[in-house]
């Protein structure tokens, strides 16, 4: 079954005319990926700060006050209120006015100065543990510094001699007694900023949006009764399917040019690799993801159903299961298999590679091959069932 370029072009031109005639839709289709990238990148990469915290200080000593003051320095934690009882803390957590609380037990100063320990409890709201966890990390780090400074000031502490001899020269803080020196080197994204790798990852999601449109166009032709006319022409099934995809591949490729520029200008994401390679592999990805949308169009005959299904098959898994947020290695076996069947999974590796590590074809070819394979498989399935479904 040969595919004629002339007939393919005829179908593509018809589809382009459709799109261009309805300019509002055309603009929406064109703008959706960039807009979504914008919204998601902002929504998902807010640096946690200003965590509202309540303090219950039962010690009321100069040390405990200095400790609290030290913890609240900077933008990380905001002192919401001093409270007098645990009940108040519970009430505030319940209302969501605080996300964490510091409870300093009586004897805080004495215990610290005699090296008996640090009677401090941190209470966090388990329903939003990101803020609470951040507060815990922040307090842990600062408490360590606070304790070593405090002990350095108080020359009469029982372990002062030991500390000066062994710990100070090596710079080890007593708080954590971390004696193993970890030299951390982070490649490709030295500050480990989530935005730097999320934005390239999200491209694999937002470039999939034209697939949702493709799923609709076949259903649309069926609803309007025009599919019958197209089928009556000597155009082959595969040509109809591929031809319908071409304009959306073009729309996608426009976005492939616009998106790296946006990522660079707005989010300051580096682009380390070759743009030509990115463009090529993005084309392959568009073919794969649009073929996936086409399968929906072949099986589902009305637009609302096609919409609902494409939302469930393309959008949600593209968001949660492609390894952008949650590493695929940590998923259950079955989910890992599903993740491998999603074009976004492979494309996310490609985008992160090209943007951040400057990976070349020698590294990325397996993912490109996977995308091509998925695209061909999806197209074959749709062509096969397109025929049967019509009879």
């Amino acid at each position, binding site marked *: 079954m040969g595919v004629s370029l002339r007939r393919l072009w005829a179908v593509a031109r018809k589809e382009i005319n459709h799109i261009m005639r309805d300019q509002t839709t055309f603009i929406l289709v064109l703008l959706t990926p960039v807009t979504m990238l914008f919204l998601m990148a902002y929504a998902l990469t807010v640096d*946690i700060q200003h965590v509202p915290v309540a303090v219950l200080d039962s010690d009321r000593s100069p040390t405990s006050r200095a400790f609290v003051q030290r913890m609240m320095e900077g933008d990380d934690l905001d002192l919401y209120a001093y409270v007098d009882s645990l009940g108040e803390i519970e009430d505030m957590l319940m209302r969501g006015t605080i996300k964490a609380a510091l409870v300093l037990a009586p004897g805080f100063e004495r215990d610290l100065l005699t090296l008996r320990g640090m009677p401090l*409890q941190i209470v966090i709201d388990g329903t939003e543990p990101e803020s*609470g966890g951040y507060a815990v990390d922040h307090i842990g780090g600062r408490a360590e510094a606070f304790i070593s400074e405090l002990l350095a000031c108080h020359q009469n502490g029982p372990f002062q001699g030991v500390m000066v001899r062994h710990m100070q020269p090596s710079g080890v803080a007593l708080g954590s007694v971390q004696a193993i020196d*970890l030299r951390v080197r982070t490649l490709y994204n030295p500050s480990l900023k989530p935005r730097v790798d999320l934005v390239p990852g999200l491209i694999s999601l937002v470039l999939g949006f034209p697939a949702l449109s493709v799923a609709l166009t076949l259903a649309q032709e069926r609803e309007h009764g025009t599919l019958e006319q197209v089928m009556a022409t000597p155009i082959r099934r595969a040509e109809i399917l591929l031809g319908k995809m071409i304009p959306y591949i073009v729309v996608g490729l426009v976005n492939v040019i616009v998106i790296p520029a946006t990522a660079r200008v707005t989010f300051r994401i580096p682009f380390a690799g070759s743009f030509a390679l990115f463009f090529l592999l993005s084309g392959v990805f568009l073919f794969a993801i649009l073929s996936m949308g086409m399968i929906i169009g072949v099986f589902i005959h009305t637009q*609302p159903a096609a919409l609902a299904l494409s939302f469930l098959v393309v959008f949600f898994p593209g968001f949660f299961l492609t390894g952008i947020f949650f590493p695929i*290695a940590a998923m259950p076996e079955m989910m890992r298999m599903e993740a491998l069947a999603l074009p976004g999974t492979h494309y996310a590796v490609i985008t992160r590679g090209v943007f951040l590590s400057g990976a070349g074809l020698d590294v990325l070819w397996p993912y490109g091959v996977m995308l091509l394979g998925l695209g061909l498989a999806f197209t074959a399935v749709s062509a096969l069932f397109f025929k049967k479904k019509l009879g």
Partner: protein
Amino acid sequence: MLKRIWPLVVKEFLHLIRDWWMPAFMLFGGAFELLLVGWATSRPISNLPLMVLDQDQSVASRAVVAALENTGTFELEAQAPDLAVIQDALDRGQVNAAVVIPPDFDNEMASFTGRPTLLILLNGAESIPARAALRAIEGATSEMGERITLRRLGLDPEELSGFEPSLRVWFNETLSEALYTTPAELGLMLEFTVLLFAAMSFSRERELGTLEQLLVMPVSSMELIVGKSVPAVLVGFCDFLLMLGMVHFAFGVPVRGSLPLLFILAFGYLLVELSKGMVISVISRTQHQAFLLVMMIGMADFLFTGYAAPVESMPPIIQGVANLVPAHHWLTILRGILLKGATLDELWPNVLAMVGLGLVIGTFSLRYVRRALD
């Protein structure tokens, strides 16, 4: 009036039954998806591929490797023969992290003033697993380091204990991820379902040319709107019940507060989203447009809900906008009732805000849609 609305409602349900794929996806698709996503992602990060280059090959270095294995976070790859292999694996994204144990590690550990060093290489191109890996490595080595320090100081470990603050987690004592992620995902899924359903209502009739027929019938625009709303709210509410049952039974999400209160507020929230969806449905000329608008508006809402990032960390202007987004208050209410056992006593500001916004949006929507239809 009821006599005239009833046939309209029946008409809508006939549509739904004839095109049964659509309600089926709306009802069960969301719940099924929630199950998949919850199952796949609400778990601690584990199995991260880690490469180790042990240049020391001593008792101490093997203890480090064993400690890393015991964290449960890593899946240890075969030992790397040299740094080039590690670099290559990182470049290819095959491993998230690598640990190099230098040749003098054992000696440094044993000597009194020694400073044992480990080189950690992280693949920053995937920052979430990289952070998890670093955290696990720090945890594993700090315990070892603590033991050495104490030995060097000649201290009894008991004497130095207690410098770590103790931690207490409220409302989610075991810090289960499913408990805090699935209710939020449920809330979002519900928003998209109702928005999508409502946005299709008039845009579909218009695209198929049947809106004309509806408009020439002897029913008022108000009756038309009610007729379109009943199925959307009904499907949305059933979807909500289904998903709620699922997160409760499959993921053990508790219902600590009052269930009737939750139902009433969920119903109210559905009406608010319905009003938004109706406006989209009369703005759009085609279903395709309606769908794209729903995606963008839904996503913009998502930005402000506090699901992905705490609202109080955002700039003050954005916080102000977030307070105008019904989904933000809905998510607070949902989490509050399910996980905290909150009552109207604590939730009234959010309830008030949601009702107030709902009235504004609802009134606007009703007037706008009626004008568009008349």
